[in-house]
Structure formats: structure tokens, C-alpha cells
């Protein structure tokens, strides 16, 4: 399998996970800081 395909799989899935994990922490933070009173 070409290196480009492996790069696509690893970096593509990896970055998708990374960004969505960041969003997870972003939401946790926003909900904590701006909680409904």
C-alpha cells in the first residue's frame, strides 16, 4: 500500500479525532464557565 494512503488514514483519522476531542473539552469548559443559574 502506498505511503500516501497510510498517511491519509493515520493523519486523516488522527486529526479528526484530535479536533473533535478539542471540541469535547471546549464544550465541557463552556458549560462549566457559563452554567445556567
Amino acid at each position, binding site marked *: 500500500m502506498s505511503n500516501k494512503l497510510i498517511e491519509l488514514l493515520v493523519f486523516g483519522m488522527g486529526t479528526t*479525532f484530535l479536533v473533535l476531542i478539542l471540541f*469535547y473539552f471546549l464544550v465541557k469548559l463552556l458549560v462549566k464557565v457559563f452554567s445556567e443559574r
Partner: protein
Amino acid sequence: MEQLLAGIKALEFNQVFMYVIGGVLIYLAIKKDYEPMLLLPIGFGAILTNLPVIPGIPGIASDEGILGILRNAGILNELFPALIFVAVGAMIDFTPLLQMPSMFFFGAAAQFGIFMTIIFAYLLGFDIKEAASIGIIGAADGPTSIFATTRLARHLLGPISVAAYSYMSLVPMIQPIVIKALTTKKERRIRMEYKEVKISKSVKILFPIAVTIIAGIIAPMSATLIGFLMFGNLIRECGVLERLSQSAQNELANLVTLLLGITIGSTMTAEAFINWNTIKILLLGLVAFIFDTAGGVLFAKFLNLFVKKKYNPMVGAAGISAFPMSARVIQKLAKEEDPTNFILMQAASANVAGQIGSIIAGSMVLALLS
């Protein structure tokens, strides 16, 4: 007399075959209710595009014809997909996801089909850019597929769009088979706790802004689609643009969908559509949806090895972008196993996470191949 017969003389068998393909799409839209808002205009567009062209008079799908003008103005420069995302953003309520942010993980895992399909497409003989465009059918998100294909492999726009929208309407048939093959009855009966967390208006307003900035910095290619999706959502949540929000959800969505469908149809010329690649693309579209579903389900099972409160693995399958169809399918399956099990909110959360995940994954593919 010669002039009256010019159209008949110019007609080719391939074009007649495309009338049949267009007719099948229209039939599926009307009789089977498969994504009628898109398949009907696509089918009719395919018929219009393949009408015979008389020498000296520009064809309807040529660059001077109305479909060609729409194609150049709306698809090849990515305008229509971006506008569709404003409408989608205005329609989406992110509240369930903000209440259960762990569902973001499934929105990432269920993009697995994109990358597996790229590998399969490459092995079937497509070059890397064509393979990537085909893989993005696995985003289960028509506008993202169109957006990526116009940048990577424009000549495949017709079959890829048809595959993307057709399989989206087949989610209720594809997902249950894959889910049942990968889970036990016991797993499908897992109940998930749902806590009604109050989400403040500030969070709902800050979320689309922060997501745009983060995605724009880490994956700049996603700026168009994420930016417009979140812009639509901000209009919805800000509370002071109710008229614009309604317009985006109704008039804008309807108008762009109408033009998008018929313009995609204009890419379905006989030469571009009738070949083995189209059949391969249709098959690979199925592969993409199967691996998407499998990726979500298997990731949920993997997480269950480490967490106390177990996830119902079916919720992982809802991490694809086909919203809200996938969430409904998952709830229906849960109800089949246990009529008192209610996991719709969790599935809907994973489903909206999939909307974001599919754009990020599609943008990463574009970034890595640019």
C-alpha cells in the same frame, strides 16, 4: 425538413440510456421517497443534459447553456454547498450534543468509512485524488462530497453525487444489517442514562464561534463548510435574527436544494456516466457506509472496555452525518430489542457530532492531498 430532423439525427443510444437512468432516479424519488428533494431534480437534470445538441446552437448543459451557467456559478466554485450549510446550520439544534459532549468521539469514529473506502478505491485502480473523492461519500454528507469532488476529481461529480445521496436514503436498510452483525442482543439492550443538563444561551452562542476558530486554525480547509454551518447555527441561536433564521431554514434551503439537484444532474452526461467507473463508485459508496457504521459501533465497544457506564454500541453508528435519519434508525432498533429503551437523544447527539466530524474528515483529506 433537414432542420426539423436535426435533433433526431443527433440523438445517440447513450443519451437514451441516460433518459432511463434519469427516469429511475425520478421513480425512486416519487415512488420510494428516496431523498426526493435531490434525486428528482438530479434525475430531471440528467435527462435535460442528454438532450441532443444541434450544431451551431449551444446545448443546455454547455458552458453557454443555463445548466452550464448554474454549474459554473454554483458548483464548480463551491457556492451551493456552502449555502446549503448555512441552511443546515440554522436547522441543527446542538443542545443534545452540548449536554453529552462525549458523543463527539462517535462523530470522529464513524468517519472511518471515508479512509477505508479511499484505500479500496485506490486498489480498484482509481488515482489517489479520485479515490479520495469517492471515499468522501462516506462522509454521508452530500455537500461535503460535492465540495471535495469539485476540488479533486470534477469529472466524477455526477456518479459521486448520485451515490452520496442514494446511500443516504438507504441508511435505514444498510445500518441495521451492519449493527446486528457486529453486536449481541445484550449489547443492543444497553440502557444509557440521560441527564437533562441546562445549557445556557451564552454557551449556545459561543459554541459556533469557538468551533469555527478552532477548526479554522487546525484544519483551514474546513473554514468554508464549518464556517457557514456555524454561521447558520449562530443565526439560529443568537435570538435576535429570527427572520433570517427562518429564511435560512426554509427559503434558502429550498431554493439552493432545487438548483443544486438540477445542476448536479447536468454533470451526468452519457460520456461521463456510462462506464465501469460509475458501477465501481456505486459499489464503493456502499463500502463507505458499511465501514462508517462499523467504525462507530466498534469504537463504542472499545470504549466500553474502559468505562463504568456502558455505551449502547448502536449509538456509535449514529456518528455518521446523515441527520436525523441515522438517529431515528438507532432508536427504532433499540425499541425492537427493548420497547422501553429510549436512546434517541444520545443517538441524535452522536448524529450532530457526525455533521461536524464529516466536515473535518473531508477537509483533512483535501488538506493532505492539496
